[in-house]
């Protein structure tokens, strides 16, 4: 059953995913020292001195934060979605859905800032914010995917004598996988954006040039951070799109 649902997802994609090559190579090109400042020089927007932590390190910090957050989100979100979709837990599922809705509504910057009094400055509050915010699409898509599993498929599995655990691992999760993966993709890509805000809390990353540029009125600096974080988001979106088609 796993292979059939996966092949269905694969054949559903028609076009060659050219973004997988384009965006990462553009990102790498921009990370070569001196390329971005030279490209931005003709626009005459502001002065760009040498970057103290080099741009590739900022990018790696950024990527590391997002990857770490996504790992934790997967570890927490999937079991949570499974737990609240078991029969006899309707109230818990509604609670989870309400909390997820709240997480979607509350501004990211507020979530990040509220973590500072508890955890101090640096990458820790940012990571907490990324986890909280990243859980939203994973849990909501996980619940939606597991809820949409055909009851007749579950009945058939029960009729075959599968235990609850077997049904979950062999029927429900494989069938819910495409929707779940789409949630993971959304969560990762959004977190690239959220992590830029983390620079305001001293987490480093690609938000640093943006925040510095905005507060020093140096638009060129803003553009450096904006272009790089946009390219990073587009690259991750394209790469994850290989595994998770947009639903």
């Amino acid at each position, binding site marked *: 059953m796993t292979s059939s649902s996966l092949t269905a997802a694969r054949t559903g994609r028609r076009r060659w995913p050219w973004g997988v090559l384009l965006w990462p190579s553009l990102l790498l090109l921009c990370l070569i020292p001196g390329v971005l400042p030279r490209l931005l020089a003709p*626009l*005459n*927007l502001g002065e760009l001195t040498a970057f103290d932590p080099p741009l590739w390190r900022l990018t790696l910090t950024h990527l590391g934060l997002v990857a770490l957050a996504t790992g934790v989100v997967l570890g927490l979100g999937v079991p949570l979605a499974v737990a609240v979709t078991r029969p*006899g*837990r*309707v*109230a*818990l599922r*509604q*609670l989870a*859905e*309400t909390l997820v*809705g*709240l997480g*979607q*509504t*509350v*501004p*990211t*910057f*507020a*979530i990040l*800032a*509220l973590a*500072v*009094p*508890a955890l101090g*400055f640096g990458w820790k509050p940012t990571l907490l914010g990324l986890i909280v915010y990243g859980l939203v699409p994973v849990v*909501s*898509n996980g619940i*939606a995917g597991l809820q949409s599993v055909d009851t007749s498929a579950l009945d058939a599995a029960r009729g075959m004598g599968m235990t609850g655990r077997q049904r979950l691992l062999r029927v429900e999760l494989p069938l819910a996988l495409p929707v779940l993966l789409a949630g993971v993709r959304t969560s990762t*890509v959004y977190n*690239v*954006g*959220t*992590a*830029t*805000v983390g620079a*305001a*809390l001293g987490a480093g990353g690609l*938000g640093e040039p*943006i*925040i510095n*540029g*905005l*507060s020093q*009125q140096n*638009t060129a600096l*803003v*553009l450096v*951070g*904006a*272009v790089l*974080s*946009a390219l990073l*988001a*587009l690259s991750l*979106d394209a790469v994850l799109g290989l595994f998770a088609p*947009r639903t």
Partner: protein
Amino acid sequence: MSKPTPTGAGGNRPSAPLLSVTKNAVRGDVPQVLVLAALPLLAGAALPWVLLRPNRLAPGEYLRLPPALLALMLVLALLPLLAARFLPRLTWLAAGLAVVAVFWVVGLQTRCALVGQAEFARASAAAGVWLSGLGALIAVYGAGLLLVGRQKLLAWAWVPAVLALVWAGHLSGWSVLVEARNEGPRWVQELAQHLRLVGTALGLSTLIGVPLAVWAAGRERVAVAVLGLANAIQTLPSLALLGLLIAPLSALSNAFPALRAAGISGIGVAPALTAMTLYALLPILRNGVVALRGVPAGAVDAARGMGMTGRQIFWRVQVPLALPVWLTGIRQAAVLLVGVASVAALIGAGGLGTYIFKGLQSAAADLILLGAVPAALLAIGVDAALRGLEVWLGRRFGRVG
């Protein structure tokens, strides 16, 4: 009851299940939620509740609850569970009491801690308060699931009680409210500025986005291009987008000094408003196109068959059918704007973000709370209000359509 439920691109909220079977299932499962609520309440009671510092920046000492109050909080932690077991009708009261008690104890403890301290001493809420508050709110949520119809309002009974506590000055010792009192009218100004920014940007983007969506929806290739662009831009970080949108403005003011004199530059209210308007344009445009193209062709054909003119078809068929999804887009834009407006303080546009940045710069947690909590509540409030409007309009136009 076959009302089409509006489903936006971003939100897959549950449409309230109205079958009596599911309702009974929910009711049976509520004790699980109440157990989940009791855990943080119990843990919170054991943790420190007050952080007492000689001034707002210095490190301080953590104070726990005295035995009597500890016992009170432990009882209140278990009360909703007991109520659900023996007196399900009054679960809301038990849960509401827990919320009010958290606020009451915070007020009591912060004021007690400040007795005999210098004027600059600050008593702020510590981990126990936040954890207990979380548990109490979950309990209220669980209790709300037991109520039906109009009775649901009872689950909000704690709100006037808490407001009364604040009004009576019971919480005046809490550091956040001390800070708020010091800021006073300035805080109100920043809140108003926040609302002005969000309102103006939302109004402008609606004015631009609605006709644009109507225009794009009628043209196949334009519509596809708009949707593709909107999807691509959605992957971009909002802060990056804000920066990118400010760049052309500041380039313009650099090139033409006359514009700079007219107040257009890379900093201040004008660039923030421009960036926010463009930012909010996306969901409005995208949902507008999706909604208008989602109107069933059969309905339009039937209208044409009835002899309606193009204008009649648009106003009487397409708009009412497209409205729910469209309004979802406007709601998403409004909620996004509340968040973006708090970052806009960085470029000197004011708003509640001012306090967040001030607090971050001086490591003053109270200032951060003073900005972040109202911003979060504002977003939730705007979301709820527009959701209500959607339901109301959906009902109204649903009958006409």
